[in-house]
């Protein structure tokens, strides 16, 4: 065994803030009050004034910075190395984007400040809109949705609104069994019944099956392209025709656009409505789970239904148009995650048209390289050419009783964040690997080397893999216990754990 990427080192322990807390410690100072103080009880009424906030922390400034600094070192991150989570497009987050998002005139812009004093922020939104339209080949886009899933909801509500206007919103949304969980969840929230359709033996849309399923009841199909196997849905245009013939619409989950930017445009292959994940394809940081941005792009016929407000150019000046009788309304207060939009635009400006295309090609090349190098060691249930990601199965290793989850944990000992485990569901014991364009050959070769070492370990000492990780400050975590008797907040102990 040769672990090349990491070595063991001391790692700081740290108690919870509540455990370090003691009365009187403070990390803040407020300016002296320049107006008379007010008695809360008089101003708000006795019954409305609370006693102190029970249990709230009291710590010093240095304790705050040490607390979060120490905790941060328990994390893995893109800034540490490759983060091959399939479907998550964990690419480098340019630091200049963080800087520009903090530009005073942008960060401190209040959503209700006069439009005359908001032309800069509106210009940024307009600029991003036009870039996204060119990239997707669609006709109109809303930047309001906060993330992919909300983009999906927005998109399905748009479909519903259009169909309703045509007289019947219909009942069903078709979703392939390879889809991400948010797709069915979204359809349900939008008030649709979900009908799963089986993928064919290649993991692709089954046109025949689709033909059958598309009845007058069907509002639309939600398809991810490239799909969650990383394979391009080659029959997408035909599928769109099937749907359109029956008056249904084609929704595309754009989570995998990192495989298409500059190469192919959904607007050119029959997609009626789609969302983008700015926090994937357009490099905005995941920040441990969010925030994101989920713009929704549509074809002309859906434009009247987009959320309010819409950006409108009035002569020299941008303004917001709220007078949109057919709009589905708002999906979120204000105009979207503006700070995320700034970062996405910065990414697009930095790359330019050719840079974006080059990134796509590197991402696809990296994924194909990994596939070629690992094919001899892991099962590849679906063998069509893949694009930005590749999905192996743990079939072979499962014979030694080692599952994808174990291999994932063992990768941690090798210094890598695991791939995506057990998704998509159509692959038994899925190992879903997406390197993105960010990774250098050096890093990718180390990753490949690690997985090969693990494949060999599984032959010789499967136990080591099944009980991994062994070298982290926290060994395998008992998730079952966590769910059985949930402890969801800290409670004072008789004797606090120190430190």
């Amino acid at each position, binding site marked *: 065994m040769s672990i090349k990427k990491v070595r063991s080192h001391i790692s700081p322990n740290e108690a919870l803030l509540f455990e370090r807390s003691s009365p009187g410690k403070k*990390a803040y100072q*407020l300016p002296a*009050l320049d*107006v008379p103080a007010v008695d809360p009880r008089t*101003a708000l009424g006795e019954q*409305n*004034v*609370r006693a102190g*906030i*029970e249990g*709230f922390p009291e*710590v010093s400034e240095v304790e705050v910075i040490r607390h979060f600094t120490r905790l941060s070192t328990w*994390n893995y*991150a*893109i*800034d540490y190395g490759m*983060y091959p*989570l399939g479907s998550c497009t964990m690419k480098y987050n340019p630091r*200049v984007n963080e800087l*520009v998002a903090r*530009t005073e005139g*942008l960060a*401190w812009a209040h959503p209700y400040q*006069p439009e005359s*004093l*908001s032309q*800069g922020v509106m210009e940024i939104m307009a600029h991003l809109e036009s870039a996204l339209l060119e990239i997707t080949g669609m006709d109109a886009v809303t930047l309001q949705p906060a*993330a*992919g899933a909300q983009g999906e909801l927005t998109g399905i*509500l748009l479909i519903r609104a259009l169909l309703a206007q045509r007289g019947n919103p219909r009942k069903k949304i078709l979703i392939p069994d390879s889809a991400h*969980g948010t797709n069915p*969840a979204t*359809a349900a929230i939008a008030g649709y019944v979900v009908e799963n359709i089986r993928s064919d033996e290649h993991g692709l849309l089954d046109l025949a099956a689709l033909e059958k399923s598309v009845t007058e009841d069907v509002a639309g199909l939600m398809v991810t392209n490239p799909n969650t196997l990383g394979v391009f849905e*080659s029959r997408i245009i035909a599928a769109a025709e099937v749907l359109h013939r029956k008056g249904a619409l084609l929704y595309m989950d754009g989570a995998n656009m990192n495989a298409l930017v500059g*190469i*192919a445009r959904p607007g*050119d292959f029959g997609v009626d409505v789609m969302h983008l994940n700015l*926090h994937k394809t357009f490099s905005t940081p*995941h*920040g*441990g*789970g969010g*925030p994101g941005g989920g713009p929704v792009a549509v074809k002309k016929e859906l434009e009247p239904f987009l*959320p309010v407000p819409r950006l409108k150019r009035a002569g020299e000046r941008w303004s917001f148009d709220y007078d949109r009788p057919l709009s*589905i309304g708002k999906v979120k207060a*204000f105009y979207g995650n503006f700070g995320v939009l700034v970062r996405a635009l*910065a990414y697009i*400006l930095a790359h330019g048209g*050719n840079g974006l295309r080059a990134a796509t090609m590197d991402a696809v*090349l990296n994924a*194909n390289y990994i596939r070629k190098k690992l094919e001899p060691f892991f099962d590849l249930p679906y063998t069509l050419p893949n694009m930005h990601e590749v999905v192996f199965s743990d079939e072979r290793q499962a014979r030694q009783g080692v599952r994808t989850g174990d291999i994932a944990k063992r990768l941690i000992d090798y210094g890598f964040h695991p791939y995506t*485990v057990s998704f998509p569901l159509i692959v038994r014991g899925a190992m879903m690997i997406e390197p993105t364009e960010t990774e250098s050959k050096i890093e990718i070769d180390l990753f490949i080397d690690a997985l090969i070492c693990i494949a060999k370990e599984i032959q010789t000492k499967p136990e080591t893999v099944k009980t991994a990780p062994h070298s982290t400050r*926290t*060994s395998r975590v*008992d*998730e079952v216990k966590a*769910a059985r008797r*949930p402890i*969801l907040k*800290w409670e004072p102990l008789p004797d606090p754990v120190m430190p």
Partner: protein
Amino acid sequence: MLEACGVEKPEDLFTHLPEAVRLKRPLQLPPGISEYEIVDYFRRRGDQNANGYASFLGAGVYGHYRPVLVDTVVARGEFLTSYTPYQAEMAQGTLTTIFEFQTMICQLTGMDVANASMYDGSTGLAEAALMAARLTSKGGLLVARSVHPEYQEVLHTYAKNQGMPITEFEYDAETGAADLDDMERKLNDLTAAVIVQSPNFFGVVEDVKRAAEIAHRRGALLVMGFAEAVSLGILEPPKADIIAGELQSFAISPSYGGPYAGIIATREKFARQMPGRLVGETTDTHGNRAFCLTLATREQHIRREKATSNICTNQALIALMATVFMSVYGKEGLRELAEQNLAKAHYLASRLTPRFSGPFFNEFVVSTGDRSPEEINAALLDRKIIGGLPLGRFYPELSDAMLLCATEMSHREDMDIVGQALQPARSSQPRSPEILNVH
């Protein structure tokens, strides 16, 4: 690498794409620009906006000071560039901070459980309503008009297609508080939830306790929203069944409307119907305390169409900012901060004539008399001051009124100017001297 893939050039990797789908031309986007030009571009955009203005806008987005430690912490790549902590052994940093976040939100709201963020206050409130419907197996929503109008709009968007009829109830024209008698009248056995916000959109503190009692009598749940989190530093935590709030006030830049962070907090017994991520405490194989995502069965990865929500990516980093903010201010600080906001707003009010008589925290409504709010704001802009939000847009009956907000960042001089601008006549005599100077 090309060789290993058996191709000559990267383009060859795309030959399997159907001819018809391929883009035959380069993207019509200008060539990439340098970092220096990018910084310059956004700086120039920023300069086109309001800069150096004193602002009295609140209405759901508040101008509070952002302690430096907040950006110091979130700038660390370990937090900024990590993914959702699915792999607990490699994400204890994020998991621990989320656990602390959940705890502090519970302490603030007096609830048993809090999730690790929703998109924002508006979607949080909508999801809380859906949650209430699941819990009561009823569909009706009774919503106070004094709830933030944009939150109401989002609520409509979410509820519309779930066959959940929404009924509005009035606010008291005198106090500005929700009219609970009107609510009681409109309440019925099909009502899943009564929805109020406190402080409400007019800044008035609602009588949530009474609202809850009324709601409960008819088997409805009381869902309370909040938009000004700093108010929790001084306001008694309401006895609601579900609380949905916006944390923008906790060191999140206004940033033209986002990203912010919403939360939902509730009672233990309702936890399994709560949407959003949850972190729980457990141990590792060595018995060390450890944290991990838990109760995921509520989420869409497992339940798919039966999930409590479709939310996946949330606002984790923003929630971390709020966590750092709460750590910096702590028990004493949040109280003092709230008291300063209270004092500033009441000083400003003392220079004016609030439209409503209900108790308010750091915002209140004023009538602009014979002049329109727009007219007054135009005058203030010349003094480099952004005035209050004209309310006509959301409340036709209040088209002669504006919503003014003061925070710890508001300067006395600016407030005096606003006072004069709004009513030169009486700007000197305080409205309610009795509550000033008493401690």
